[in-house]
């Protein structure tokens, strides 16, 4: 009898196929026959499609090598680290923004300030 874990491994494999990734990206194609009232397996599959979409984008842009696809533990670990890093970066920016609010414009860190135009009076 197939367990949920067995089904999950199969879903992961299917989610990263060109067929399902294409269905996921193309707005004119449907992944499922039903558009609403999704079953639990369908909800899980949608999140897996998103997971592999992000992973493939990173791979295609050269952010991560093909080795990430060697093992599902690698895939999970990379995405776990990426999420953690994104959160950390966002928090850092938020803190910078908060401290910048109390500084004069010219002294603000990490802010690109354009050179003011000058009026020329003749």
């Amino acid at each position, binding site marked *: 009898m197939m367990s*949920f874990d067995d089904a999950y491994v199969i879903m992961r494999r299917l989610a990263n196929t060109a067929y399902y990734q294409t269905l996921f990206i193309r707005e004119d194609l449907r992944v499922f026959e039903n558009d609403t009232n999704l079953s639990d397996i369908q909800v899980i599959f949608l999140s897996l499609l998103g997971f592999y979409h992000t992973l493939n984008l990173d791979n295609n842009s050269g952010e991560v090598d093909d080795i990430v696809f060697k093992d599902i533990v690698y895939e999970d670990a990379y995405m776990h680290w990426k999420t*953690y890093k994104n959160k950390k970066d966002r928090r850092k920016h938020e803190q910078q923004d908060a401290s910048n609010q109390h500084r004069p414009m010219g002294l603000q860190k990490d802010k690109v300030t354009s050179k003011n135009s000058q009026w020329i009076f003749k």
Partner: protein
Amino acid sequence: MEEEKKLEKEIKKSDIEDIKEKMTQALNTGLVENLLTDNKVEFDYKDNTYKVSKLIYKDRQELQRKRAAKHLELLQDDSYVPEQQIIELYLKKGFDIKELDRQFTSLQQQIDRTKLTLGEAIQNKHSEKELETLRDKIVSLQGKQSDFSIKKTNYLANSLESQLNIWAYEYLVYLMSLKLIKGKDLGEENKEEDKWVKIASNFEEFCQLEEDLINLLAVRASLISNPNSYLL
């Protein structure tokens, strides 16, 4: 010569196992793909067609109502012991079940930390050997975590809550299962319409169905509707 024959026999045996494994995988993949297509799935079993479909609101309400009634029934029955009492009984015998939870959480923290290290190592193109060592560590921690989870489930298997969850899960399968009644052939290309009806007229009748059929229904039902969302 004899050894060669023995080896040949062993190879054939392993080939058969391999083919069996591949066939099971193909069948399971087919089933998963079938289940992904829609929020319902049909299958044939011994000349009959069955369907398992996601519960509608009315059925979900029925399940909640029946589960609540069953909960009260089990509470009034002295042969069922609540989980908390079992935990206390084990503690008196010198075994702390809650310690399993603490160890489980601690393992999860270790897994998360190792995943971060591995993720960063993948991004920074560390050697394959280093990546494999980290992966093996994660797999080993997950294995230990799974052992704790199984142990806890076994210790609490006879608790009132576990028994109620098993009952609710079976009731869920019953509510999700339908059988096709084929319309009679009226002759001259006329035929009565096919009709989907409940698989059994009541839960007791459902429990009398063949175990193989119930298993086929249960696998499909548990993937369409995660039983955990209906449990305590």
